Structures are given as structure tokens and as C-alpha cells.
């Protein structure tokens, strides 16, 4: 949902302090670490990311290889030893897919979708936002009208239509999320850039007759980064949740390569019959992932929002 819009709006509109001279990184880290929760979020997220990256080497089974699945092992309870000789610690789903492996691979897809769409949307959105702020005039109007149009339309519906149109697939989901999300970045960057643009150091750069591209990327962009990082963090969490919802509604990733959302949605049908593990464990994995990202994002916003500093 469009939470982050609202959350970041105040931050985006605010002027951002130029980094202090003495060790901005160190200060940033120590301020971030002030919140134990955020630190916990960071640690958990790093673990999750490592699991996702190394899933093919540490998962007991390749859950996407049909030859390794057997429906005779379907819906086994956690801790059962299956036909292939290893223990299903978190049980199996209806196709005989080891849930532990499924979750590891599912995390891969969820993170790929989340991070991938955020990075691309950020690149697209930030470029356009910067352009709008710097160029102003008609370019600004056109881009911002596009942003308004995009933001005025509910993301879930837009993604739904785009996916119905494109068909299922991980890359299609990423594309749909990029189309849905770029506007948040554009608006954030434009807001910040408009303020930064009038500052002395930009004027100084302009007086030196530096090329526009250089001013934008070397001077303006770095100073727009703090709010952008906050938006990106939140958008990753949001994209992961949106992908899960889309998969639940029957669009999203293909059924043979389930993401966390699809695993939950498959298991959802077995909830009432007591086979909780099919839906429960992926649900926990999804929840932990999103919470860890949101914990980080929360603290990041506090740290990077200068108005809260005394």
C-alpha cells in the first residue's frame, strides 16, 4: 500500500543538512546503532540475504526441479523423512516440495523482486526527478503530471492490470513494480533537489561553468541521497508485500517457481484443514523479512531527518 508515500512526504519536502565535515559515516553508523531494534533488523536482514544468495548450495532440494519432487511425499508434516532420504524439517507442500528449500528459494525470488524493482525504479525515478528539478519549466510540468497520474492510481490495481496484460513471470512482476513505483522516487528526488538547487555550492558550481551533467550527478545527486535511501528501503519492503499479494490473487510468479507469497497462497487453501506448515513458515519468513527491512528504514528515517535532531 502507499504507506511510504505518506511517511516520506514530510522528509522529502524538508531540506537536508549537508554532511558535517568530521566523519559523517561514523556519525551515521553510531546514530543508526542507537536503536537496538534497527540493529537487530540489520543483522536479521543480512542473514536472510545470505540464505537467499546461497540457497542453491545450502538447500537440501531444488524445489524448482520437477524431477526432484514427488507427489507421494506431498503434505508431509515437519520432521518427516521423505522418499529421497532426507528429513523435511518444515514439512512439504502439496507437490512434495520441501518447505525449507522452498522458503530459501522463495526468499531469493522475493528479494530479487523487491531489491531489483527498487533499484531500477530508483534509477528511473531519480533521473527523471532530478531532470524535472533541474530543467524546470515544461519538462518539469510533464514529468510531474506523469507522477501525479501514477500516484493517483492505486498501485495494486495498476500492477494487477499490467500483470494481466504481461502474463506471469518474475521479470514481469519486477517490470510491473517498477512502473508502479518509479513515481515515488521521482517526487522525492525532485522535492529535495529543488531545495538543494538554490544552495550556494550549486550556484558556485554553475559559476565555474561546470557541465550540467557533472553538476547533477556529482553535486546534486549525492545531496539528495538521504531521503532516497529511506524511500528505497521502505519500497523494498513494500514491493515484497505487493508481490505476495499479487501472487495470492493469482497473478505474479509461475506456480512451479513459487515465491514466498505464492507458497503462502498455496498453503492458504490447506489452513482450514490443519496443515498449517505449508502457509505458516513461508508467512513467518515473509513477515521477518519485511519487518527487518522496515525496522532499518524506520531508524534510517529518524537518523536522516535533521528536523528531529536537537
Amino acid at each position, binding site marked *: 500500500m502507499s504507506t511510504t508515500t505518506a511517511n516520506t512526504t514530510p522528509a522529502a519536502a524538508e531540506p537536508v543538512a549537508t554532511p558535517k565535515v568530521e566523519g559523517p559515516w561514523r556519525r551515521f553508523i553510531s546514530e543508526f546503532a542507537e536503536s537496538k531494534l534497527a540493529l537487530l533488523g540489520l543483522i536479521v536482514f543480512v542473514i536472510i540475504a545470505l540464505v537467499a544468495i546461497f540457497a542453491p548450495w545450502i538447500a537440501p532440494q531444488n524445489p524448482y526441479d520437477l524431477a526432484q519432487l514427488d507427489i507421494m511425499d506431498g503434505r508431509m508434516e515437519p520432521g518427516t523423512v521423505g522418499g529421497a532420504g532426507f528429513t523435511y524439517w518444515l514439512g512439504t507442500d502439496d507437490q512434495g516440495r520441501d518447505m525449507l528449500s522452498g522458503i530459501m528459494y522463495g526468499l531469493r525470488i522475493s528479494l530479487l523482486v523487491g531489491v531489483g524493482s527498487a533499484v531500477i525504479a530508483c534509477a528511473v525515478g531519480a533521473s527523471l526527478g532530478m531532470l524535472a528539478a533541474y530543467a524546470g519549466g515544461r519538462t518539469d510540468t510533464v514529468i510531474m503530471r506523469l507522477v501525479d497520474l501514477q500516484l493517483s492510481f492505486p498501485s495494486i490495481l495498476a500492477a494487477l492490470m499490467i500483470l494481466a496484460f504481461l502474463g506471469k513471470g518474475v521479470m514481469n512482476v519486477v517490470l510491473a513494480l517498477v512502473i508502479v513505483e518509479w513515481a515515488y522516487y521521482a517526487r522525492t528526488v525532485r522535492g529535495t533537489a529543488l531545495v538543494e538547487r538554490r544552495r550556494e555550492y550549486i550556484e558556485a558550481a554553475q559559476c565555474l561553468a561546470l557541465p550540467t551533467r557533472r553538476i547533477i550527478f556529482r553535486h546534486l545527486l549525492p545531496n539528495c541521497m538521504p531521503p532516497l535511501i529511506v524511500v528505497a528501503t521502505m519500497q523494498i519492503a513494500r514491493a515484497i508485500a505487493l508481490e505476495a499479494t499479487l501472487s495470492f*490473487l493469482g497473478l505474479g510468479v509461475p506456480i512451479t517457481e513459487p515465491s514466498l507469497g505464492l507458497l503462502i497462497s498455496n498453503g492458504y487453501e490447506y489452513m482450514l484443514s490443519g496443515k498449517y506448515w505449508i502457509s505458516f513458515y513461508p508467512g513467518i519468513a515473509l513477515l521477518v523479512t519485511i519487518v527487518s527491512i522496515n525496522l532499518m528504514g524506520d531508524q534510517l528515517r529518524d537518523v536522516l531527518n535533521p528536523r528531529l535532531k536537537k
Partner: protein
Amino acid sequence: MSVYLLRRLLQSVLVMLAMSVIVFVGVFAIGDPVEILISPDADQMERERAIKALGLDLPLWQQYLSFLGNALRGDLGRSFVFNEPALQLILQRMPATLELALGATFLALIIGLPLGLYAGLKPKSPVSSAIMAGSILGFSLPTFWVGLMLIMVFAVQLGWLPSTGRGPTVEVLGLHWSFLTWDGLRHLAMPALNLALFKISLVIRLTRAGVRETMLMDYVKFARAKGLSPARVTYVHVFKNIMIPVVTVVGLELGSTIAFSVVTESVFAWPGMGKLIIDSINVLDRPVIVAYLMMIVLMFITINLLVDLAYSALDPRVRLENK
């Protein structure tokens, strides 16, 4: 002011036109509605007749133009499936969705505001940490999953609330509402809470952030220094100030709540517009899909405009002319 309004209106018309083209082409590309509407027993002749009857034998641009012509006269076409005017179908379902969205907004405000205020005023207290942690959870829980959990616990296990549907409705002003009866309220409770969960977190965070920022403002410091009671400072000076972002967001969110009720309505079989659109996408009922999206766009434009106006009323510093 009026020039501004006029420009906004013109832009809206363009947006709606673009929307209709995209949807028209999109639905055409997804698949063939005849394949899903027609009886499997139908032979080739019947198939051809049905294609003609639905006007799908014409080239796409011709279909679009005739749609546009009718739309200008207020006719958004008839549903392929129900053979009823698409607009009428949607309007029939609208009260149900509005009721759900307003119920959720109401819950979000009465739960979110006090919690957010507390967390903002006492940022260091453990209760505040708990509230904030809870709000992160509220953001992170997928709606559909929470919905099923609610059904599992409150309907199936405890049997306190009905699992699905809308329950009895009362006719007021020609529309059916369910919040006017006890049984109707019981049906409304779970879906509204499900939809509200996310917004509660949102309101908590907005309120807290607003309070924390406002407390540092000079005029608040001044008011305190002047010796005004903390209660007066909080409820008059701080509260009024933080209402601006809350009103904006709640207003903007009403639209996305209506859009997002797609998920809640599917889970709870709530007979609203969201369920209609999902059903219509599944059967490629193009007239309904197009009409629905046009309505949503229209609604968002209206909401945005109203929020802008409310904004200027609450905060005189914001001038519409500045836009």
C-alpha cells in the same frame, strides 16, 4: 482559483481518455472474452453469433470509437456477463465498498490517533516502543493472511462473528447499508478491521512523527514558556498542527483503501466493487473493467482536489495559487 479548477478538470478528462484506451487495448490483448462466456457445448455457428452479439467482430478502433460515442452520452456499455449497464452494476456495489472503507478509516482514526499521540509525547517509554513495534508489524502483515487468520480465530474457532458476506441490509435513501443493524455490524467488523490494520499503523506513525516535530517548534516552546497547561499545548497547539498530514493522508488513503478492498472483499466475500472488478477481470468483462477504472480515476481526482481544498482551509499558508 477557477482557472486552476478548470485546468485540473481538463487534465482529468485527458487522463480518463488515456486510461480508457489503455484498458481497451489491454483487455483485448489478454484474451478472448467469448471463450469464457460461451457454453462449452456451443458449436462454431453459435460462437460466431455470440461474437457478433457482443460487438467483438468489429475492428478494435471501431469498437473503441463506438464506446467513446456512447460514453459521451453517459452510456458506459452493458456488461457482457450480466447484460446490465456496467455503470449500474458498479453503483449497486458501491455502498458496500464505501461502507467498508469508511468503517476502516473510522477504526484507524479512533485507534491510531490516541496511540500515536502517546508514542509521540512519551517517545522514551516502553509502551511507546511497543506501539511502534506493533505498527511496524501492522505494515508488514500481508492483508490476505491476516484476513484468513481473523476468520480462523473469530468465526471458526470462537464462533463470535460471521465468517463472510454482508448480512442483512437496511434501505436508506434507496441504498442498502448494513451498519444500521446489529447483525450487519457484526458482519462488518472483521473485514473493516482487516482493512484498517494497515491504516492504524499509518495513523500511529503520522501522529507520532507530527507530534515529535511539532513539540520542537518554537511556537510550542513559546506556548509552554508562557505557562499554558501541557494539556492545552497538546490538544490545541500540537494537535491542530499534526492534523494536516493526517487529514491529507487519510483522505488520499481513502481512495487506495477502496482500491485495496479488492483483497479484503475477496477474502471475506464482501459484495463490493473490488470483488466485482476481480470477477470481471477473470471473465474479461471489458465494459465493467473500463467503467470501473474510469470511476476510480474520477474518484481519485475528486479526492485529490478535496484534500487540496481541505489543506488550504486548515493551513492558510498553503495557497492554491502557488500550485
